[in-house]
């Protein structure tokens, strides 16, 4: 199915291209706009992002596939990413992961059958002093977590 930006996204795109002397430099911000709208980057979205910047679709795919935050496959409604790097690991990140795997009934890298949660790990998110922590959908950080706080957090995600 063909994909085009919604009018609001189109307006955002029109503003952002003016910020760069070369159109291509707007590629990553443009991919962000599409992912914000769809939740992931299907081939049609990659093709559209490339087309509006006069680039071949392969360019959009090549660039998107380099960066961990672009979803090239659909993810659950809530993509939970737990930091696994040293400082967080020292203060309970793995216990947090084990707790999540148990509560959600999935393993790392998997999505719950109802499509609600995807569980992943992340590398250091610059919250080493407030670990263990996780990020949801690439947006909010949830820091200083304990199993109890985690249960409250999960319950709040509807």
């Amino acid at each position: 199915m063909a994909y085009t930006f919604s009018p609001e996204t189109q307006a955002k795109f029109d503003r952002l291209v003016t910020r760069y002397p070369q159109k291509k430099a707007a590629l990553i911000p443009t991919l962000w706009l599409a992912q914000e709208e769809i939740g992931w980057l299907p081939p049609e979205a990659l093709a559209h992002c490339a087309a509006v910047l006069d680039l071949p679709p392969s360019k959009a795919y090549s660039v998107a596939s380099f960066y961990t935050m672009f979803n090239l496959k659909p993810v659950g409604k809530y993509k939970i990413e737990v930091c696994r790097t040293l400082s967080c690991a020292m203060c309970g990140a793995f216990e947090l992961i084990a707790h999540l795997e148990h509560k959600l009934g999935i393993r790392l890298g998997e999505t719950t059958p109802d499509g609600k949660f995807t569980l992943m790990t992340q590398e250091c998110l610059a919250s080493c002093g407030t670990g263990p922590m996780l990020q949801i959908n690439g947006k909010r950080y949830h820091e200083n977590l304990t199993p109890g706080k985690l249960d409250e957090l999960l319950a709040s995600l509807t």
Partner: protein
Amino acid sequence: MSTTKILSAYWHVQDSHTIDVALQQGAYVVAHDVLKGARSPEDVTNEVKKSGLRGRGGAGFPTGMKWGFLPKDNPKPRYLVINADESEPGCFKDRYIIEESPHMLIEGCILASYAINAHDCYIYVRGEFWHQQRILQQAVNDAYAKGYLGDRCFGTDFKLNITVHSGAGAYICGEETALLTSLEGERGYPRLKPPFPATHGLFQCPTVVNNVETIANVPWIVRHGADEYSKIGKYVVGEDGKPKVDSRGTRLFCGSGAVNKPGVHEVPLGMKLIDYIDEYHGGVKGELKGAIPGGSSCPILTADEVRSVEMTYESMVAHGTMFGAGGLIVIDQETSLVWVLHNLLRFYAHESCGQCTPCREGTDWLYKIFSRVLVGKGSEADLQEILDIADNMEGKTICALAAAATMPTRSYIKKFKDEFVSYFVKGGRPVDLRGRYIQSPAMARL
């Protein structure tokens, strides 16, 4: 010792990130005066040079000197690019500058752009900093609304546009040339140097890349002068008239790991590291084994070294390590260093951009060896193998990521040889990071 706070001076004030609070705290006064003609661009550069300010992004390069490298006769546009990628494990300081005093950064961008005659400034913020990007964008919008940015900054002829640009998840984009490639809309591949960004940077134009903290220091330095700045920190002139210790100013340090109170603190350079840990982080949690002073890419210090090292560039070098980006990770006796290294090597294997075979294969190979050793299947030969692999990586790659993985690896094995030999040779049962025996093999996959 001076307790002057530069970067965190008003973080304690409610809503310190807003332009109203920033203005109450004196923000933009010096940028206004300078642009109105009080100081020439050369004057600003010279003040920064004289202050001895060094880059806070990792390499510690003198900032004023970097600005001076831009060619005078190149007709192309010039760019200022701010590195807000902050992805080095253990570092979490730039985010607080953005969260608590974004206008200090913006004012620094105005002064630095004026000094190097740039009219476009990009702030490259790591993609995961969704929240911080919003705060920064709001601050930039407010500065535009006040007329501090745009075609006529402060009503003068000086034009400056600042664009907040989001990354999308890649540690390597913190490396300055990878950052530029990424900013141009490409995969974040580092470029060979030379040519340096000073001549062939963003869009092949003369470019200065500076860290957030570096630039946030600039308004204070220009306002109070290099002489005042030089009174902060440690500055000792030797008998030959040359500085013996030149570690001026304050730095933000991020303490995590085995400390009682993790967090970020701004302290003048020159303190003893152990005093800093005791005073600001409530001391070591448990018994001290060692510490990584500046982020995961810095060689480790033993407990004795942690007690003797001073927080100066010189003392760090004398102890075979560096400040990096101020990410102090304290390690206690309960923590297995084999586990620590395994954890970090996985990070580097994951983050290698893959351009250079020695780095792409080498980081992965090191990680695989440690994965095997961790579950008790190591041998003494592995230790030699690891050093051989390191030899084949260092100095043979495009960027410093390969060395960022091998230098710490070497230091751990050299300084804690007994622990490694006994684990590698005796094997024994696998332990997790807390020194506990691994209950399920699943724990080893992390």
